[in-house]
């Protein structure tokens, strides 16, 4: 938790202040052609409709996520927004933040980020931060760090920024998965007040599914990369005419792959383990909450008992013609603890849900594959 806040603070410190719109608008408009004047908004008024990921970003995120297996990989994404589409054109990984040496490494990360942005600008790459990315396993990514980082981004960045999550296990299964999210307004409001008591949750109608809203993602490759990829996938002409026909196709740098047809269900047991772990964590958290609730109830009861006793006493004193004792000191004598935050338990529920969703998908594709294999074999 301490690490979470410190990382969030790091990013807060390193982000540029929300850029105020340049005051002399007249000369700027001249540079914008008439056809583009509707799609370029200096004030950031056009709401975001979808996120467009460049091929470079896709491959960079996949590589970083794989390299940093075990520890969670995260980094910043850079780009521009145009007519409701957030075009993400570049990204860079962030060094892993260790919670031990806080102050020094925080400064180091701020320096790292600033210097990286400057360097990218020097080679004409985009240098405006539009969000961050996070790697995850088996569909579950909700945690406090992510929520807090995104909350800061949403306040500081133009258009609020997005968080792009990449599922490592799904990619390994043959379906590269990228999703983009933002925090919902209701959740942001609750987070700003730092109030996740039951009544606040009811007011904001918050459940785990309404923490984040998803934005549709598009993947785009630029023409140069597209043509290069085509060169890689197309089989080069067989060196000798009349060669082995099966060998002719395998000369392409990128032969077609059918790894999705693999019948193996290795990830199922790990997925189940994750679910059990998450359920256990949720159980513990619920236990804590119940304990705190009982304590609150006990304290309240004590305080009420004291008040009624004092009232009776006072009534007796009044009847005897004495001055009544003050009733206000009850707040001083009994400290009623504040209602516990339900944020953690909500996030845990979200994780359980995500894990079981991943499990359901795996089993449904597993079924299809099994029947496909069965009909093929003619059993």
């Amino acid at each position: 938790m301490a690490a979470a806040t410190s990382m969030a603070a790091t990013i807060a410190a390193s982000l540029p202040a929300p850029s105020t719109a340049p005051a002399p608008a007249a000369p700027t408009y001249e540079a914008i052609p008439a056809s583009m004047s509707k799609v370029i908004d200096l004030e950031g008024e056009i709401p975001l409709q979808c996120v467009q990921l460049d091929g470079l970003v896709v491959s960079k995120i996949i590589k970083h996520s794989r390299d940093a297996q075990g520890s969670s990989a995260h980094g910043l994404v850079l780009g521009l927004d145009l007519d409701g589409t957030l075009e993400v054109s570049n990204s860079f990984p962030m060094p892993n933040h260790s919670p031990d040496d806080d102050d020094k490494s925080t400064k180091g990360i701020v320096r790292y980020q600033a210097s990286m942005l400057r360097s990218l600008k020097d080679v004409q790459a985009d240098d405006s931060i539009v969000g961050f990315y996070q790697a995850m396993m088996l569909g579950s990514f909700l945690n406090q760090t992510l929520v807090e980082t995104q909350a800061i981004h949403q306040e500081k960045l133009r258009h609020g920024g997005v968080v792009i999550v990449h599922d490592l296990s799904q990619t390994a299964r043959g379906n590269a998965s990228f999703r983009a999210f933002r925090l919902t307004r209701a959740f942001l409001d609750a987070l700003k007040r730092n109030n996740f008591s039951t009544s606040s949750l009811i007011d904001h109608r918050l459940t785990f599914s309404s923490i984040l809203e998803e934005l549709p993602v598009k993947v785009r490759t630029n023409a140069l990369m597209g043509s290069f990829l085509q060169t890689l996938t197309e089989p080069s002409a067989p060196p000798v005419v009349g060669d082995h026909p099966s060998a002719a196709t395998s000369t392409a740098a990128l032969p077609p792959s059918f790894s999705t047809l693999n019948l193996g269900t290795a990830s199922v047991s790990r997925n189940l383990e994750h679910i059990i772990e998450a359920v256990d964590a949720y159980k513990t958290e619920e236990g804590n909450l119940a304990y705190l609730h009982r304590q609150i109830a006990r304290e309240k009861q004590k305080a009420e008992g004291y008040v009624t006793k004092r009232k009776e006493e006072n009534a007796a004193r009044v009847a005897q013609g004495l001055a009544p004792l003050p009733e206000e000191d009850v707040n001083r004598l009994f400290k009623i603890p504040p209602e516990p935050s339900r944020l953690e338990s909500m996030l845990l529920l979200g994780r359980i849900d995500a894990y079981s969703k991943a499990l359901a998908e795996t089993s449904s594709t597993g079924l299809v594959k099994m029947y496909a294999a069965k009909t093929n074999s003619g059993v």
Partner: protein
Amino acid sequence: MSLTVESSAVYVQNTAPGFISTPGRAPTSVTVHPVALFSILDHYLRRTESQERVIGTLLGKRSDNGEVEVRSSFAVLHSETEEQVAVDMDYLKTMYDLHHKVNPKEVIVGWYSTGSNLNTYSALIHDFYSQEATPHQVVHLAVNTGVVEGEKACVKAYIGSPVGVYPKPENCVFVPIPCELRFNETERSGLDLLTTTATAPNSTTPHPVTDLEVLEQSLKSVADMLDRVLSYVQSVLAGEVKGDAVVGRYLMDTLGASTEDLEKKGFNSSLQDTLMVSYLASLVRSQAEVSARLALVTST
């Protein structure tokens, strides 16, 4: 997975593979990760008008058998005129330090440039990078982006070798070495996503797609291939085409695979397991949903 265009050139190597690694030993082959390639292409796309080619640094690992693994790359500022060539050393140092922080295992293994012309400046830059990476030798990756008409997009790898009685930095023979595309199998689906995107209209694809959709695509393409094979076999049987024994044997090996694992009982028990897991998953999901709703209900 060769990246280079077929040529009749023979790779000249003066050391037999399998030697103990010594500093300064010449790399014998290069493997390139797709990320490095895509970064180079992106850099080329973002060059200024006056730049004819762009250069940058290759980061990666060296292995004992003389293989150099290029895992990522970053752009470096440089300028070339008729008289001189300049590489921004400070920029290179800064960028290298930044990359080193995130990925300490990756070191400078060489440099890239776009276009396939090797000139005196290439030799000079190569010499510069050699000093950066001493005692190891560096590799040079010439990426032809394929924008010049009549030239195919390809990647070639070279090592530098001094030439002449008195070696001078501007004199250098670039000896070609084999170069391959290499990536981890788990990253394959990312590349598949990009290749389908590249062939799609507008070069964009909607995302995310469910696992089932991806599976459907692969099953369809398998069905297509089976159809093709079937029509070929039928035309051979009808005597329209002369059968190829190699193809026949290949088909026999592929399609005649044993189906013993799929005998009735195994299939059924596996089916039950899968259904059980699927049931469990939906049970957990509904419990989580109910629990979340119940949290919103107060006792009063």
